[in-house]
């Protein structure tokens, strides 16, 4: 099992550019999440999904979009990058409400200049 994988590990974007952060898990987990971690802060939830075809907003969704066409993949899209989106992005997954441990990917460090 690779667990939760994220690509890329690092990325530098110019203001106004777009990109997709990839996240995949091979544990057959229903629940998937995107968090961002700003310097010196805890993680904040951007979007989450409870299964293929179902997504919902978290605490800080503005400027992002997600889709969940398969159980395995949960990409995060930045349409018009802004400096405020400079952060480390973590993807996580969990099996269900009954199994409450979230497994995290290694993170993507994004810088917008």
């Amino acid at each position, binding site marked *: 099992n690779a667990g939760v994988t994220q690509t890329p590990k690092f990325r530098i974007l110019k203001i106004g550019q777009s990109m997709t952060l990839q996240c995949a898990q091979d544990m057959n987990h229903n629940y998937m999440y995107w968090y961002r971690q700003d310097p010196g802060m805890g993680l904040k939830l951007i979007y989450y999904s*409870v299964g293929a075809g179902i997504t919902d907003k978290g605490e800080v969704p503005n400027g992002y979009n997600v889709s969940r066409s398969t159980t395995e993949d949960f990409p995060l899209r930045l349409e018009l990058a802004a400096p405020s989106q400079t952060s480390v992005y973590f993807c996580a997954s969990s099996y269900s409400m009954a199994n*409450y441990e979230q497994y995290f990917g290694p993170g993507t460090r994004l810088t917008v200049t």
Partner: protein
Amino acid sequence: AQTVTQSQPEMSVQEAETVTLSCTYDTSESDYYLFWYKQPPSRQMILVIRQEAYKQQNATENRFSVNFQKAAKSFSLKISDSQLGDAAMYFCAYRTRRSYNTDKLIFGTGTRLQVFP
């Protein structure tokens, strides 16, 4: 809304000694989970320990244990026999247990633990 507060931005401990990291939270719910996550320099988030609010007994995992005070809404982490590999950021997190909600985690701002030889 639930909040999680970690009032110690940094802590340090001598190798083999014991250290306690503090966490308080605010909620109106009676049933929930609490977690401690470790984030080493590799950035990987690693679950250290979890506590179900309905359980009175404090959780333990080897050298890690918690002091869960539900009435005081306090959830501290004790690390015994500290090792150099324990050096990391430690995050306290809260999750509701309501069945109609997803298991979203609410994180504190973290405590950076340094371990000195």
